[in-house]
């Protein structure tokens, strides 16, 4: 399975082993590698992954800032804020946000965080970075498609960004953009050009995701180095494999939903429209079904949450094991539970639609399948707990984030058992309970997986460490803050408080939570600034961070730590190492060490795991 041949056309430059030179020096070594081909239209998976990450960080700041704005509205509905008129201009005359803009903000906040940050920024970054490095490949199967994958994402993002500046505002029907609201420009301002741009942007994003996903699958299946059998792969790679499979099978359905919606909007078709009277006239469309869109959307939409979760799970597994100095517990069970989650992910989408009037029998089937998914999830949690049990834990920043990940995954996962049960969902649906549930389980917890990954692999990305102290501060504020923000929202949801409301003051049933909403808003703003601390740390550390002086700073087993400190394109200077053991051989190595990397041959008499 050697893939030496595949890289001959890319100039693999020789490296000195000190790893002290920085990127600019590289540019000089590399024969005629122009800045543009090296850093912009790069085909090196490591550069592409950093492009994904930095673009993801940009979008996380935009999306996070949006949440600060609408939290100001929710927490202080009677007050005005200069900062709102500064950023939103005429959308917030005299510092009071317009409801149309409020809905635009929540819509774009959801869209960019789900797709641009937690899909592209998470799976795009780490699949790209880790797949070749951990399976022992020089690059992706198709570096060119890989580059296109990033650039489709970048263009999708650019289009979404432009839509923020339209006079009619961005799409504003919620990140799910259900028609007819999103299909009819009469229904809301955001359903004008903003919605078209949203759809085009999502279509391009799907293309990006497919190019990336196909590449990941092909690379994992075909380009593993000698000895890297499937069962010796780190769990990160298993997670990226299933993430890619989920994406490849479900994203095209979103594309079809988006295309049909574009037809309904501009070509006079009636896929989603029937018997509508709006803006003083009855539309001719008859026979479509608004619910059809929801089926198509959630056929992606539900697997999407696992597209977000699986990479975080994989990285948390790797990090918990490495920093506990203990093998991951139940490797095969972890792989099987990933398979279980992947299969079930395709069979539960309609649990988002219990209140659409669907057939109760069908609803019952979806309840059963939905609660089934709790079983592989529970297995994973117990395996993580057993992994740190009797470990030798080093509380590095990535380890703290991985522990935080497990805590949040438990909290957010358990509330899924309420929502997955239709008889409870019929009350909790579209309340703050849902907001709390999905933010904790696939928002914050996936973010924690991502942070853990960034802190853990930053040394491999830049040859420097991120600053520890700032990392610890970042962890504690974010961990405590996230619970402070989202925990009380469960109560609001149980009381029936609906999500996507601009103002609750006129509601006898919900206005008692005013003080609480203020507290949540303040916490949200603090947590937002703590994330800027991370961004600050990230960029300062690229140039000023403590230098990595050893090849394997975490003393980990997987192959990426056998490359030079700052690997060039092609990853290994010499031949790709051969793999002799699984990725979790944390044990007495007979020489006073507690780990045996994958490329070390088995000793005489030593049994392979």
């Amino acid at each position, binding site marked *: 399975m050697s893939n030496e041949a595949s890289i001959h056309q890319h100039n693999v430059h020789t490296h000195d082993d000190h790893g002290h030179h920085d990127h600019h020096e590289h540019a000089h070594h590399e024969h005629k590698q122009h800045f543009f081909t090296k850093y912009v239209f790069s085909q090196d998976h490591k550069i592409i992954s950093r492009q994904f990450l930095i673009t993801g960080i940009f979008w996380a700041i935009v999306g996070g800032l949006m949440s600060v704005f609408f939290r100001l509205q929710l927490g202080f509905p009677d007050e005005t804020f200069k900062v709102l008129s500064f950023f939103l201009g005429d959308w917030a005359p005299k510092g009071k946000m317009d409801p149309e803009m409020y809905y635009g903000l929540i819509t774009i906040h959801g869209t960019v965080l789900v797709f641009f940050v937690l899909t592209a920024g998470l799976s795009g970054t780490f699949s790209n970075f880790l797949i070749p490095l951990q399976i022992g490949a020089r690059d992706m199967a198709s570096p060119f498609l890989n580059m296109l994958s990033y650039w489709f994402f970048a263009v999708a993002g650019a289009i979404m960004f432009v839509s923020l500046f339209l006079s009619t505002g961005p799409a504003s029907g919620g990140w799910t953009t*259900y028609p007819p609201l999103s299909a009819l420009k009469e229904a809301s301002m955001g359903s004008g050009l903003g919605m078209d741009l949203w759809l085009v942007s999502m279509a391009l994003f799907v293309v990006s995701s497919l190019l990336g996903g196909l590449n990941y699958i092909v690379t994992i299946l075909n380009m593993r180095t000698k000895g890297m059998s499937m069962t010796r792969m780190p769990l990160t790679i298993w997670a990226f494999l299933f993430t890619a499979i989920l994406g490849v099978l479900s994203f095209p359905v979103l594309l079809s939903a988006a295309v049909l919606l574009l037809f309904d909007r501009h070509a006079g078709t009636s896929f989603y429209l029937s018997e*509508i009277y709006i803006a003083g006239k*009855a539309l001719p469309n008859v026979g479509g079904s608004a619910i059809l869109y929801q089926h198509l959307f959630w056929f992606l939409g539900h697997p999407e949450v696992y597209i977000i979760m699986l990479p975080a799970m994989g990285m948390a597994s790797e990090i918990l094991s490495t920093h506990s100095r203990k093998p991951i517990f139940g490797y095969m069970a972890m792989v099987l539970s990933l398979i279980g989650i992947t299969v079930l992910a395709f069979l539960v989408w309609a649990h988002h639609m219990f209140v659409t009037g669907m057939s109760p029998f069908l609803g*019952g089937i979806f309840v059963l399948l939905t609660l089934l998914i709790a079983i592989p999830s529970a297995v994973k*949690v117990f395996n993580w707990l057993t992994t740190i049990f009797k470990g030798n834990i080093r509380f590095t920043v990535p380890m703290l984030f991985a522990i935080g990940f497990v805590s949040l995954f438990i909290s957010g996962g358990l509330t899924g*058992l309420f929502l997955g049960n239709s008889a409870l969902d019929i009350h909790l649906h579209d309340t703050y309970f849902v907001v709390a549930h999905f933010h904790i389980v696939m928002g914050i917890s996936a973010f924690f997986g991502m942070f853990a990954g960034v802190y853990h692999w930053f040394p491999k990305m830049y040859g420097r460490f991120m600053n520890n102290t700032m990392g610890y501060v970042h962890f504690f504020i974010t961990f405590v803050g996230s619970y402070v923000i989202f925990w009380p929202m469960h109560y609001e949801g149980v009381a029936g408080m*609906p999500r996507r409301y601009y103002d609750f003051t006129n509601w006898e049933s919900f206005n008692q939570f005013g003080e609480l909403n203020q507290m949540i808003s303040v916490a949200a703003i603090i947590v937002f600034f703590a994330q800027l601390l991370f961004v600050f740390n990230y960029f300062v550390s690229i140039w000023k961070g403590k230098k990595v002086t050893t090849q394997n700073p975490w003393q980990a087993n997987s192959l990426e730590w056998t490359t030079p400190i700052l690997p060039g394109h092609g990853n290994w200077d010499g031949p790709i190492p051969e793999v002799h053991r699984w990725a979790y051989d944390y044990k007495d190595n007979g020489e006073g060490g507690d780990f045996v990397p994958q490329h070390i041959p088995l000793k005489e008499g030593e049994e392979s795991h």
Partner: protein
Amino acid sequence: MSGLLLVFLVALIFIVLYQVSRSSEMVARIQGEELFDKKRNKILSYSMLVLWVAFMVGIYACHVYMMPLMGPAAASDHGKDYDFMFLVTLWVTGLVFMLTQFLLFWFAFKYQRIGDKVPYNFAHSTKLELVWTTIPALAMAVLVAIGLKSWFKMTDAAPKGAMQIEMVGKQFNWISRYAGADGVLGKKNYTLINDNNNILGLDWNDKKNMDDIVIPNGEIHLVVNKPVELLIGSRDVIHDVGLSHFRLKMDAVPGITTRLWFTPTVTTAQMKKKTGNNDFVYEVSCDQMCGKGHYSMRAVVIVETQAQFDAWMQMQQSYYAQNHAAPEAAPTKAESDSVKQITMN
């Protein structure tokens, strides 16, 4: 100005933190990294314990703060099932939550790195895997069983004799319709909708429409302990009838009629007494994003005794009569004749 100050303040905090963290790196170098790491590791392991305690105290404090703000117990028959089921699920998940969170933080604290001990090699146990696959599976089976029993009960056909009320959503209010004396809701057609005198598009060719009562602000009156079935529709985009006090909701989808039935068990007046809140009112919230005015799409449910309901009903005039004082609105001459006949009856 204050915004600028805030930005300045945050920048200052960042810089201070950065300097502090650099000096801590310096300290590490002076003390020797290993010793420094050891100390830090110990402190951080204790922080796990502190986090767990803070977590539990926080949950308790939150609960104490929130409980007085929660709404009253369910006001419908089926809501009692819901409340019970919620409690069962809460206990099951609560136990798992307490156990796993405790183990997580306890293990993190307990198994901090002390020296270079050889890691405990424990990578697999089929027995354990089976245990924690089976137990969640059993727990899920229980939750599914309770859930589906309640689900099929509530989605079953409404009992015979249930009052039927139509609830139609539009941007941004509800419209409700009662069947009138004949007890049947007449046909409607969206192409007949007219905001002046036919907001639901009632088909006047259908005589069953003549006595139908339309309430343009969506207020619905229900009789306590009498089952009611809502026939839900929408004129424009998807809305959702959210009845939080009755623990129910159902989407209103254009082109489709959805249904929902329940039995209210507490009158509005009783609820006012029970909650000690004279302004108490059962509210219908729109629970599906429907546009700019989504947050203000509100209607009111009034649950009352049969006598009060009858008195209220007496006062209502049919929508047809309200809008057809003048004869010109009648579709055809023949029809208008028959219409007159019916209204005279």
